[in-house]
């Protein structure tokens, strides 16, 4: 026999399940604009039919359904899209940091503009040409001295501005390292919370969402790979439980370090721990000379993300002891160029004769401070600034007023290739072409590097946006859809209630309307 009240029970299940579904719909609507929220779905299942098979089971026709139950509330999300998104956001982090620091560098160099080094050098060369035309003119000499000062000032300015941007980047590196550590410990904490909920068969969707947002953020800072681990001894975990996140630091090319570096480690038995990042700097140069992850120290920065972009801009000590990085490179180039130019200019200057002088000049036109960077310390000799008649424009003993032979040699330095310098043995091997062409080459390379970083950045942004679009397509809340669901579940609820009423009327019939024959 089927129980008299079975229908009531079925209707009751219908009511409470629809109610649950409506509450979930309400939660979806409420969180429509919550960052990282994935829409949730109530998985409905039929409850088992009556009667179940057994020795004493009543002999009735077939199995009759007993209604509905909410099995799980699951978030709708595609972990494959998450991985795709994180790859792109990692590139955004790297190229974003790169393009920003290179754009700042372009801002400092300020080329091609009228106030850049190229324009200042032009003024200097012009002043030397002016000197060849008016050697006896103290005005022309003053101009040479003062444009020389401008050249020195411009180089000093470049050095100081570049190093101050570099300092900013160094601060950013520390901030980002802290951010990474905070994210790692937050993810670790969420893992722990999740590990306390899942074994009970619950699905902590809110914790999953929070953890995924943190992992998204972390992926922008360093390249990572997420592995879901469900520990073997894990209670009554549901089939749809996500498990714990093991987060591994990956190389740029997507392969693991050997041995692997886990930022958050989880194994089959449960939580193991975290590896925080620590940035260490070289004592003498101040460059980054290693990254400590837990007990491991990386000296090659073969991972991607914002941290790596910042380190590769700021400068780092390579395994062979040399310094790499965008800012140190630029400073080194400026230095080499300045040193070569100053040495040659001084050498030529010292061959010449100052006005009315019988002996070759003993003065250096430009002075460098030993032990300091050339671009940082270049200045025009104070004696020449004070008394420009000491500029050695003459090529012959006596320093006749119209003797412009040495001034011409100085002006000709503009077109002279570094390889033709009499002081070339002191030059760096990297110097090619003349001062002007070498410098415009530096600017050209900076332009290309910065452009390619920007292009890569905007490509990654577009790709990330498209992946994110796919992700949203799967996970984000559609209000129209929720409204439709709302109507659907509301009507189901109403219908279950109507069933309940019908059952009531049926029972009323049995209780009050039956057994009254002959009354």
């Amino acid at each position, binding site marked *: 026999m089927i129980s008299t009240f079975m229908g009531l029970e079925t209707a009751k299940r219908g009511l409470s399940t629809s109610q649950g579904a409506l509450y979930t719909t309400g939660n979806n609507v409420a969180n429509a604009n919550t960052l990282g929220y994935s829409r949730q779905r109530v998985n409905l299942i039929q409850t088992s039919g009556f009667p179940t098979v057994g020795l004493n089971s009543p002999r009735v026709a077939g199995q009759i359904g007993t209604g509905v139950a909410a099995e799980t509330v699951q978030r709708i999300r595609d972990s494959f899209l998450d991985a795709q998104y994180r790859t792109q956001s990692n590139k955004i982090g790297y190229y974003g940091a790169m393009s920003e620091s290179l754009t700042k560098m372009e801002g400092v160099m300020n080329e091609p503009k009228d106030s850049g080094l190229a324009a200042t050098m032009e003024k200097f060369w*012009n002043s030397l040409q002016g000197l060849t035309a008016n050697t006896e003119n103290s005005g022309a000499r003053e101009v040479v001295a003062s444009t020389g000062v401008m050249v020195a000032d411009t180089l000093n300015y470049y050095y100081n501005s570049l190093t101050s941007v570099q300092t900013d980047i160094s601060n950013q590196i520390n901030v980002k390292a802290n951010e990474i550590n905070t994210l790692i410990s937050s993810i670790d904490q969420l893992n722990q919370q999740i590990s306390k909920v899942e074994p009970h068969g619950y699905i902590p969707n809110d914790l999953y969402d929070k953890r995924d947002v943190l992992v998204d953020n972390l992926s922008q800072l360093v390249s990572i790979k997420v592995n879901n681990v469900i520990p073997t001894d894990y209670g009554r975990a549901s089939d749809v439980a996500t498990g714990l996140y093991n987060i591994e630091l990956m190389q740029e090319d997507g392969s693991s370090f050997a041995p692997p570096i886990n930022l958050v480690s989880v194994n089959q038995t449960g939580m193991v721990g975290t590896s925080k990042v620590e940035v260490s700097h070289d004592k003498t140069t101040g460059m980054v000379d290693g990254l400590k992850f837990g007990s491991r120290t990386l000296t090659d920065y073969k991972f991607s993300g914002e941290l790596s972009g910042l380190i590769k801009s700021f400068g780092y000590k390579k395994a062979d002891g040399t310094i790499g990085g965008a800012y140190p490179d630029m400073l080194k180039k400026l230095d080499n160029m300045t040193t070569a130019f100053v040495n040659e200019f001084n050498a030529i200057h010292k061959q010449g004769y100052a006005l009315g002088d019988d002996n070759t000049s003993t003065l250096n036109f430009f002075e460098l401070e030993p032990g300091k960077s050339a671009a940082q310390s270049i200045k025009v000799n104070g004696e020449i600034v004070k008394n420009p008649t000491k500029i050695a424009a003459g090529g012959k003993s006596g320093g006749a007023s119209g003797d412009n032979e040495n001034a011409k040699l100085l002006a000709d330095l503009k077109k002279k290739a570094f390889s033709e310098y009499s002081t070339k043995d002191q030059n760096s091997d990297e110097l090619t072409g003349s001062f002007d062409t070498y410098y415009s080459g530096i600017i050209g*390379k900076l332009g290309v590097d910065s452009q390619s970083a920007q292009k890569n950045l905007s490509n990654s942004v577009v790709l990330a946006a498209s992946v994110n679009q796919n992700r949203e397509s799967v996970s984000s809340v559609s209000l129209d859809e929720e409204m*439709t669901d709302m109507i659907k579940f509301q009507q189901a609820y109403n219908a279950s209630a109507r069933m309940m009423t019908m059952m009531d009327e049926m029972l009323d019939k049995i209780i009050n309307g039956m057994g009254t024959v002959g009354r």
Partner: protein
Amino acid sequence: MRITQSMLTNNMLSNLSSSYEKMSKLQEQVSSQKKFSKPSDNPVAAMMGMGYRTNLNQIGQYQSNIAEATNWIDSTDDAIGEAVSAMQRIRELTVQGSNGTYEGEQLKTITEEIKQLKEHLITLGDTQIGGKYIFNGQNTNVRPSSVKDGNGNTVYGTGDINLEVFSGISLKINTDGSNTFGDALASGGSIDQTIDALENGGDVSGMLEGLDATINTFLGMQAQVGARQNRIELMTDRLKQQEVFATEILSKNEDVDIEKAIMDLTTQESVHSAALSIGAKIMQPSLLDFLR
């Protein structure tokens, strides 16, 4: 594909911001009149631009060097031209004096005039431009006539003054004073001999040959200066052409085509307002508006 409100909003936002970005780029182009502002906007053009600027600047500098050279050479030409006239006057006077029909007093006047003309030649030898003595070699701040040797002859300074007037081409802008005036002003030279002959009754007509030789020296120098003037003119023309060419290249490389930029900006503006109005239309309605 399932589309949700947040996707529409995100899309709309990213479209709007890219549209703003394009507008700001165009606006910058229109206001700066330059196609690019940073090397990374167009690395090749920026690098070329630096080269073109150097080129243009060099042309400008050569032009000012040429102006200086022209100044020197024109002044030299004037001075020599005057010297030639003075010499011709001396020759005329000598011819007059050789006639034998002049009285002693008249010969004295002639002699006096020749002496004055010689003084004039000395002044010409001291010609200055901008405070520089142009016939005194590299000693441009010394008056040539103030330096005499044991015989009382003017000692002109030596040394060439060269200016670069074109890439790798230097031009000598001064003229050797002793080669030019030395002969005429030498004590015992043709003028002094003529004066001596006039004062002491020598063979005056025999002096003409010497005077002619002196005139020829000046003419020879004038021809040289003329040749240099021609060369300078040629250079000036060539530089002018190059300046036009270099300016044009520079402009083509980095200047904005203003009509195009404004057209683009206007187009972008209308695209932007279309994006805004479509966004406003799409975002508004939802099923909510139609449910009771």
